[in-house]
């Protein structure tokens, strides 16, 4: 059994060293014999055992004795651990591909492919939440009727909860728009303020939506790409609205209407019912994805593993 594990390890080491290459060849020969239920004739396992035990004998006789006595058993354990680690490695790779994290969807555990945890990072909401994990996030009993919606009545539904000044939302939003443009699901954008004073921007966006849905989505794109240091200023908002060709007077009237502030506040209250603890939080067909995910992860959540085969 030792030769199987050795062959794999030595094959990798053999890329860099001729000595290990020769040992890998011996190990392979040994593996071939073992898988055909014949004893290893090269003496590879004995050779490696002797080298190992010989080296240990000069340091600790009891350890050398133990290794010598239980070499075969230890080899099996080593191989089992090796195979287990390979299985976990493959699992991590698959999970990373499908969820953006080696440890599963929304998991914040260390992932070698995303060591900084960028795929699960969020801007915290600073609001009390009932959710203890991403699994508890839900859209049940959340009234989304007042939020902006694209492609209504599509059977596939995406709810994007983000904040204009949250860097992670700003990263996820264009990815999401690309997905929406391609697959045309029902797409609800829900602004939840976590950074800066974006409540006012949410109200502006709400008012523009009442005037023109097309202009609203354009405005959303501008807000998610704008310089955060100026986007809260009145001048920026007015210039943006003017450039979009929006009736600024009508928007201002809407903003002065107390119902607008109340509605936007109600929207926040509704969103809090999801239990969200950070933005962006995206619900795709009811499943919550916390943090900015790569495109493939959103697409898989929407269309499955073979999303690239679907239209």
């Amino acid at each position, binding site marked *: 059994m030792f030769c199987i594990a050795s062959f794999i390890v030595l094959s990798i080491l053999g890329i860099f060293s001729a000595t290990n290459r020769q040992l890998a060849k011996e190990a392979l020969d040994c593996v071939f014999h073992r898988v055909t239920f014949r004893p290893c004739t090269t*003496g590879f396992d004995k050779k490696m*055992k002797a080298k190992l*035990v*010989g080296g240990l004998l000069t340091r600790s006789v009891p350890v*050398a004795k133990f290794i010598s006595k239980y070499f075969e058993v230890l080899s099996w354990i080593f191989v089992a651990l090796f195979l287990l680690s390979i299985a976990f490695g493959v699992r991590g790779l698959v999970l990373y591909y499908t969820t953006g994290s080696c440890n599963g969807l929304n998991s914040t555990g260390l992932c070698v492919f995303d060591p900084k945890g960028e795929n699960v990072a969020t801007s915290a909401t600073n609001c009390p939440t009932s959710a203890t994990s991403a699994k508890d996030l839900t859209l049940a009993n959340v009234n989304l009727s007042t939020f902006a919606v694209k492609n209504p009545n599509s059977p596939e539904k995406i709810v994007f909860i983000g904040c204009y000044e949250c860097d992670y939302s700003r990263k996820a939003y264009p990815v999401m728009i690309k997905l929406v443009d391609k697959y045309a699901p029902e797409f609800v954008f829900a602004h939840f303020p976590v950074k800066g004073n974006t409540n006012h921007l949410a109200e502006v966006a709400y008012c523009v939506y009442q005037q023109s849905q097309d202009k609203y989505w354009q405005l959303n794109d501008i807000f998610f790409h704008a310089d955060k240091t100026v986007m809260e200023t009145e001048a920026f908002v007015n210039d943006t609205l003017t450039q979009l060709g929006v009736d600024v007077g009508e928007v201002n009237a809407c903003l002065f209407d107390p119902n607008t502030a109340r509605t936007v506040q109600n929207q926040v209250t509704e969103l809090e019912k999801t239990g969200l603890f950070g933005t962006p939080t995206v619900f795709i067909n009811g499943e919550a994805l916390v943090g900015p995910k790569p495109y493939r992860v959103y697409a898989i959540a929407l269309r499955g593993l073979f999303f690239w085969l679907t239209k």
Partner: protein
Amino acid sequence: MNIDHIRQDFPIFQQQHNGKPIIYFDSACQSLRPQVVIDAIDSYYLRSSACMGRSMHYLAAEVTRLCDESRKTVAKFLNASKKDEIIFTRNTTEGINLVAHSQQFKKGDVILISDKEHNSNLLPWQQLVQKQGVILKIIPSQVDNTFDLDAFEKLLSLNVKLVAIGSTSNLDGLTIPMAPIIKKAHAAGALVILDAAQTAPHQRIDVKTLNVDFLAFSGHKMLGPSGTGILYGKHSLLEKMDPFLVGGETVSSTTYETGVFLPPPEKFEAGLQDYAGIIGLGAAINYLQKIGFDAIQNQEHLLNAALTEEMLKISGITLIGPDDPRLRGGICSFYKKGTDSHQIALMLDQMANIEIRSGQHCVHSWFHAHDLAGSVRVSFYFYNTLGEVEAFLDNFHQIEKVL
């Protein structure tokens, strides 16, 4: 003999591996080389790297002179009647093969060998059995592996053409009683070839006194370069023998139909020879003679006695050959039932750079006949020390704990 002083002549002892010195106990396989031998080889390539005996120029004359000197040195070393009885070969194996292929054998001729021959003195004769129909008979050893003269005499009553026998065994270090064996063989009308690969490095050999017909040995076991060997043959016999390999330097002239072969040794030295090796071998023999075989044997016996005494105390250890170390020269070969000799060798190497031989030492036939997997063989030479033997024993005792 000042061992410390002698060890300074061997550059390999200056080297360390993994921070530890090398303890070389595998001289029966190949000895280490002193600086004078290395210098002699270097000297050929630096000062006279040309062909021997063919060209007329100065360098050719110089290499011819040096190789001739070596041949004379070997002849003197063996007390041969003339230097033309000395044939340079690559090793003992080639020397034995030369005799096997050049001597005239006919179907039914009997060849005697002992039951513990090195493959080099077994396979050439087995080939003759298959190709020429000769009969190969094995002389059984006594229980303690010593030579059985009675059994030998009985076998001599057959139509024995040749006795081919190792004068000192690489398995157990035992030296056979050469003189009576040769005498009895001659009396029975048989020729004798001695495989002296393990004798020449350790004992004085006098081919004239022994009256041996052929004797082969290697340079690499006696401080000489690897790829060098000697076949001694009585000139009268060599003259009658056909050449084994033919080609350049074996003939005085050729036509499209035939060639005129030179007398020995030239007719047996086909093609360009290893001149550097031949010169190096001469230097090695000179060095050995300066040390002296009495001193060499005394040192080997001292070391073998120290090792044997301790090994006999270890339960489960079986020595191959007699317990008396004086009979085993510089070799102590042993095994422990159920223990893999290779593992012991690898552990000794790993622990303290102790280089020994394990396995069947090219004497597979003996191990198969005795149903043994192999043995550990410690083989000394005069450059080894008692301190090294102690190091071996210390480490072996450690290994015992995990066996």
